């Protein structure tokens, strides 16, 4: 016992003696401590699929364009400038002549051609090849219909000129280039450690990794920390002020909150939902609530005999008080959604509406044949295990109970079971969320087209489909948005999905961090970020 007390005291003293927190220390050495949510699957831009991976990759590799932290649209990245042909199908990218890989090699157009070939190589098993399907011959190459990559619409005209040919004028093509699936990888490095389609190649290990971004991979401790350091070979390295970024895969939101408060993190990936109203009330200066291009919605299985009837679906939608939901349940600045596409996405304003009208809802239910004698069967809401989903589901369960008199059962399953049930249509109502891949309403509306893997509701509408096809074949933004709006109206009129609210990005950001501006897709290029205390 005596020894234990001594041990304890010593330990305490050791603890007390060092009082600079990582945040203080980071200020001096320009080290940015980043809370990143979960251990990244990897850092191969052609294999990974998540958001934590994006935050790391954006510091390591650079695509043709980079996100604009101070306004709309994209800024030049690896490409200095670009020209689009009049018919909108041909893009010429002029790459920087001083572009380099982190090992000093020159970055050329051929690198992009090889990289896009890699992601379109079926045996690699990339989950995002469809980002490039807009190119001529791309989907054919990927699905094996053609096997000559020369027939695909990307060519290196000369050392620094890249020509891209699209199937149809795709107005959002430039926006799509911010997605890491279109970023380049260093051919020699990849091939040195495996073949072009080797998923398990070790080229991404620290020491091997080569890419063209503002930072380079220094160390990677699994489930602990990833460190990247400034890349002197980056074409714009003189503008980069940070020396290192430390990424922490903190999966528990309460732990992350505590780490931020203890000065161990400069920025968190999210916020515990019960802390948000408290921080709002006390005017916490570190609280950030940024607009985010995402929609939280419920999928309805239109193949289900009860949900087949559009009146039932509309009744369910009209019986939800969205304002109450965001004010009393989610409580962090979310916005009630009355359309599927978040309003304001690149200037798009849908004019759809969903009233909160319990009487109308009950009437619709009666019209559909449900009443005292023929009572509405029990409905199941499927969602994956998560505090916030649980709260929303509970609130909606009560709303449907009170406003429609129907019984609802909540089924929460672990993530994989939830995914597999949604995939095979084994659900009635299922919770869902979608974040835009690029800044254009098409990233949402495309989801609900027939035969889309992400549709999952079984809803198909030929008019909707043709409207979207037409909209994507014109470059006239006004005309496009008119067509998209029409499609959106069809969607809301049929209600295969019930939009609930538009996401916001809520997180904590230390006041030492400058240049980390709100971005609608939450892309923050690290070359604009630096640490300074007022």
């Amino acid at each position, binding site marked *: 016992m005596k020894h234990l007390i001594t041990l304890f005291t010593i330990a305490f003293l050791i603890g007390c003696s060092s009082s600079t927190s990582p945040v203080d220390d980071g200020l001096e050495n320009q080290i940015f401590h980043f809370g990143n949510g979960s*251990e990244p699957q*990897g850092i191969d831009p052609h294999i990974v699929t998540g958001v934590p991976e994006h935050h790391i990759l954006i510091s390591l590799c650079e695509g043709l364009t980079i996100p604009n932290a101070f306004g709309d649209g994209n800024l030049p990245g690896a490409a200095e400038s670009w020209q689009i042909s009049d018919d909108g199908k041909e893009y010429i990218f002029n790459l920087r002549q001083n572009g380099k890989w982190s090992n000093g090699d020159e970055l050329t157009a051929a690198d992009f051609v090889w990289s896009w070939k890699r992601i379109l190589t079926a045996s690699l*098993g990339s989950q995002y090849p469809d980002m490039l399907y807009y190119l001529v011959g791309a989907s054919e190459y990927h699905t094996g219909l053609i096997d000559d990559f020369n027939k695909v619409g990307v060519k290196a005209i000369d050392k620094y000129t890249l020509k891209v040919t699209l199937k149809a004028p795709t107005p959002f093509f430039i926006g799509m280039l911010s997605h890491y699936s279109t970023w380049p990888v260093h051919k020699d490095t990849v091939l040195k450690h495996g073949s072009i389609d080797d998923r398990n190649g070790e080229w991404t*290990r620290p020491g091997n990794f080569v890419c063209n971004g503002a930072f380079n991979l220094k160390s990677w401790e699994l489930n602990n920390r990833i460190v990247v350091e400034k890349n002197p070979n980056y074409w714009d390295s003189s503008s980069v002020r940070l020396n290192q970024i430390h990424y922490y895969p*903190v999966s528990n939101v309460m732990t992350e909150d505590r780490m931020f408060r203890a000065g161990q993190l400069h920025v968190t990936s999210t916020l515990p939902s019960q802390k948000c109203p408290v921080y709002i009330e006390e005017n916490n200066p570190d609280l950030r609530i940024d607009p985010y291009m995402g929609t939280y919605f419920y999928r309805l299985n239109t193949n289900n005999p009860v949900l087949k009837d559009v009146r039932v679906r509309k009744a369910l939608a009209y019986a939800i008080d969205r304002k109450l939901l965001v004010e009393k349940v989610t409580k962090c600045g979310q916005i009630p959604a009355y359309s599927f596409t978040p309003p304001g996405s690149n200037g798009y304003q849908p004019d759809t509406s969903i009233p909160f009208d319990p009487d109308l809802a009950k009437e619709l239910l009666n019209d559909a044949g449900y009443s005292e004698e023929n009572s509405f069967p029990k409905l199941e809401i499927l969602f994956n295990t998560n505090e916030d989903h649980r709260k929303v589901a509970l609130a909606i369960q009560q709303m449907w109970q009170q406003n429609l008199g129907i019984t609802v059962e909540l089924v929460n399953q672990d*993530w*994989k079971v939830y995914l597999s049930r949604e995939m095979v249509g084994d659900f009635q109502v299922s919770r869902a969320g979608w974040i835009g891949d690029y800044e254009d309403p098409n990233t949402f509306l495309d989801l609900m087209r027939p035969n889309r893997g992400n549709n999952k509701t079984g809803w198909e509408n030929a008019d909707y489909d043709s409207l979207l096809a037409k909209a994507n074949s014109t470059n006239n933004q006004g005309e496009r948005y008119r067509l998209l709006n029409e499609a959106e109206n069809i969607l809301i009129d049929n209600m295969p999905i019930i939009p609930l609210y538009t996401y916001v990005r809520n997180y904590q950001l230390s006041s030492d961090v400058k240049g980390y501006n709100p971005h609608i897709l939450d892309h923050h290029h690290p070359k604009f970020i630096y640490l300074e205390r007022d």
Partner: protein
Amino acid sequence: MISIFIKRLLLAIPVLLAVASLTFFLVKLAPGGPFDADKAVSPQVLKNLNEAYNLNASEWEQYVAYMSGILQGDFGPSFRFPGRSVSEMIATGLPVTFELAFYAILIALLIGVSSGVLAALKRNTYLDFIPMAIAMIGICVPTFLMGPLLVLIFGINLEILPVSGWGQLPGDKILPSITLGFAYAAYIARLSRGGMLEVLNQDFIRTARAKGLTEKNVVIKHAMQGGLIPVVSFLGPAIAGLLAGSFVVETIFQIPGLGRFYVEAAFNRDYTMILGTTIFFSAMIVFFNLLSDLAAMWLNPRSRDNS
């Protein structure tokens, strides 16, 4: 005893094989695969992925391939983390969890045995009630409450200890070890009290006291040997349970241990990782159970198997 030790070690092999085989088929049964993602995977891509990981072969073929790999020491690549092998990941997480478990057990034994023995000796007095009451609290307070509470007090309010990490900031090993160890300390306290009480009432103790031996002599030389048998029996599964149960502490304190890998692998359906860590933990459990059985035998020669 050596022969028993060797015999049990040999028996461990079929045990581990059984665990591996059962687990293999168990994980394949659970719905949801390693490549299911929020953004739906096209059937084409899924086929390619399954191909790359030999998931298109028949169950039996996969089983045979996997088991022969194991026998050669190859646990396969992680399904979730391309480019990482399971052995590599286990090698990263293991030392951390081991260290955490070691400190926790140390704290648990120190606090638990001393308070349990004390309580037994001073039965029905305050020195019995108070340590046992604290022990009760240790049992009632789950780690997911103890951890955040300690962090709140020492990390956020008093600011003398770090809030997370293992080996990154000075003093960051203290709170997690206490959190994990305290619950076990409580169990050990109660078990040792119970065991000691059993022993203290036996005739040979009365004899020893009558002979005039000092209390300290009686307790340490004679009573504890038998009285701590329940503790020793408990230690085997406790240590093994610590390794797996450290998941909660590792999550709260952001510790890169094997417990987190294990649970996350289960939720990600990272088949090879699940199998690898299961076999590994199993081996640990068998080993520690064996050690604790042997220790119990050694402490009480009479409990050795007659046949």
